[in-house]
């Protein structure tokens, strides 16, 4: 289910929030509106954590994570790190990494199985990403833009990329990530998808300016229409029981 919201009158919700299948990080806002929107949708299923990263509210752009782990920039303070570690479930590994390109959210885009990273990221970081997040890492650019985290947003079900991505590039990415991808826009024709949209397998949040056309595209490609958290949980439980048995 896709929801429209605003953070202090800004439509770029992807800057102030990070959403994964296991947890959600939200920035400390002046009004509680933003937080309450996320809470109402998500808190039944996953923890919603209010935090700051290195004293800033740019939680979405500085961090990257999936259900396996969370990576923080080296500018993140110890208190913040501790706070996050406390709030998150134990399965999630929290790691602080030293990287020249410190806006990890802009440079890395990932779901639970694969990740796209900025072509100029260090080898060490690439290894840590593969390790902590448990993903297969691809160095790729999206529509000629190296900031992959900003210009695409994808989950395990599907993804949206920059509107100027060529058909060939789209096919290539799609085959790498093994998910359906579509070129689209968010927030009334803005091409910065990563900033305008946060999503996981059953929920998505975008800016208030997003038109109904854009919203329908998002919902259809991310398969949110008939997605309920319970569905995922029950289907997983069935497979788990199978394997146990």
């Amino acid at each position, binding site marked *: 289910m896709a929801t429209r919201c605003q953070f202090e009158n800004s439509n770029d919700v992807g800057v102030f929030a990070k959403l994964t299948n296991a947890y959600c990080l939200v920035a400390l806002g002046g009004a509680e509106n933003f937080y309450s929107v996320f809470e109402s949708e998500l808190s039944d299923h996953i923890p919603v954590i209010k935090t700051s990263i290195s004293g800033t509210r740019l939680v979405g752009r500085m961090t990257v994570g999936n259900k396996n782990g969370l990576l923080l920039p080296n500018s993140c303070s110890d208190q913040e790190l501790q706070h996050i570690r406390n709030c998150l479930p134990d399965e999630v590994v929290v790691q602080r990494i030293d990287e020249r390109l410190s806006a990890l959210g802009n440079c890395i885009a990932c779901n639970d199985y694969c990740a796209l990273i900025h072509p100029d990221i260090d080898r060490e970081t690439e290894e840590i990403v593969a390790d902590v997040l448990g993903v297969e890492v691809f160095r790729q650019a999206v529509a000629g833009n190296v900031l992959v985290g900003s210009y695409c947003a994808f989950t395990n079900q599907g993804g949206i990329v920059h509107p100027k991505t*060529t058909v060939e590039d789209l096919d290539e990415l799609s085959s790498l990530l093994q998910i359906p991808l579509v*070129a689209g*826009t968010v927030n*009334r*024709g803005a091409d910065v998808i990563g900033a305008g949209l946060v999503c996981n397998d059953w929920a998505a949040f975008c800016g208030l300016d997003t038109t109904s056309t*854009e919203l329908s595209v998002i919902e259809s490609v991310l398969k949110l229409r008939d997605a309920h958290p319970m569905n995922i949980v029950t289907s997983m439980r069935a497979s788990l029981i199978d394997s146990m048995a």
Partner: protein
Amino acid sequence: MDTQQLLGAAALGQASMPMATFQNTSTASMVLCCLCGTSIPSNPSNMCVNCIRSKIDITEGISKQLTILWCKECGRYLQPPKHWVTAEHESKELLTFCIKKIRGLAKLIDAGFIWTEPHSMRLKVKLTVQNEVLNGAILQQSFIVDYTVRQHVFHKRTFLFLEQLILKHGADVNCVKIKDIHEGVDFYFQQRGHALKLIDFLQNVIPARFRHDKQLVSHDTHNMTYNYKYTFSVEIVPLCKDDLVCLPAKVSTSLGHMGPMVLVTKMSNQITLLDPVSLRHTTMDATVYWRNSFIAAASYKQVVEYVILDIELLGHELGKYALAEVQVARLSDFGKNDQIFFAKTHLGHILHVGDYALGYDLSAAQLTGLDYDAFIAKGGETQDVVLVRKSYEERRIRRRAKGGAAAEIRPWKLKSLNMEVDDGLPEEKVGRSRAARTQGAAEAPELERERFLQELEEDPELRARVNLFRDAENIERLAQIAAKAAAKPAGLEDDMDDSDSDDDDLPEVPLEELLDDLAELMMNEREEAEGVDEVADGLKDVDMDDA
């Protein structure tokens, strides 16, 4: 070994197919328009063209309704403040001229005329402009600009009056040549002093300002004499008697909030303005006028005839003007519909119920002038009718119909300056257009002249400043017609009696005021002399000429 490998490789190379170069194809993917959902290639705003057009209008700041002034006599268009542009209907020059007038035009891609009727007084130009919108998308939009063509009123009456004044005071005595050109008259003098004398004279009789210029024509190095050509340019105030003027806000305030709609009642070396509603009047000097110049909002050509239905004096009087409230109906409406206008007028003394009066119709008329537009835009209100003078047209027409030839003949005439007429048009432009223009040009001055003569008949004050001469021929003709009338049978005399009572009101020039034309008398004497003497006595004629 190496050569063998090379040969082997070469052999292999020959056997293999030629390599095709790999072309990197990139097809832009389609996104959905964020507003309407149609599939479009991505653009900086990611909206389809129709959606962008419906949201944004790049022609917003551009003026779409403009007025241009046009001279009926020569077909030239006014480029303010002074320059007149010659251009044919729907020509390239006209297009350039029209486009220059538009304000707020950023980037023009294309322009062209849309056909309009030649006599419709409207020009339509279609323009295509380009502008950047929304994150760098470039939008191109076409729109139409409407031009209203207004005729520039040329105040020939002031010139006619000026001509008479010059003749009366003999200010043209030292003039070498006089040329009548577009929008003015050129006087040529031998000496600078004579030109200055004319300028002094002009400044005393009409409000004007002048500029001077000096040009070196030749110089003689041996004598150290320099020959200069001095040019004085005199600009006359473009107002006429009986013009309706809308004073600009500044002028109105400086005159003590005199209602912006005023009438010009007298043009001498000062301009006299009268507010018909309050009966306040003021005189304005030429210098004061040029400080804040204004033009007439409506002039005599635009008057409409009204019939007075009721008049009530309000008691306030000023000299020959009396404030009165009137109920009038347009002559064109009279009998057809019940449209009545109420107004205050200064002509209380002169008008009676049933009289005809001429006035400006402000409810329907289109008045020119930025001052008037500004005044209305600020929410100003004006009367629907401003009466200017009593009309003697009806009576004249009746008199003409009854009296036959006698009514049209005036027992007096005016002299005129000996002027060369120079159109100022280039020689090449011969053909239908020029002929048509000169035809049109011939009509308008005739009307102006006729109106000028009527004015002289009606206003004794004006007559005093001008010389009227006895027209011996016309007086003879009138006498002949009167003799014929006297010889008519008694039955028709009744008609004449009826018309007499109407004719009483019609202003005429009393014969005592007319001067004898001395030159004419001389001509008559010479004719007599020629009649008596034979051709052999030609020397006598020469003597007479010298005298």
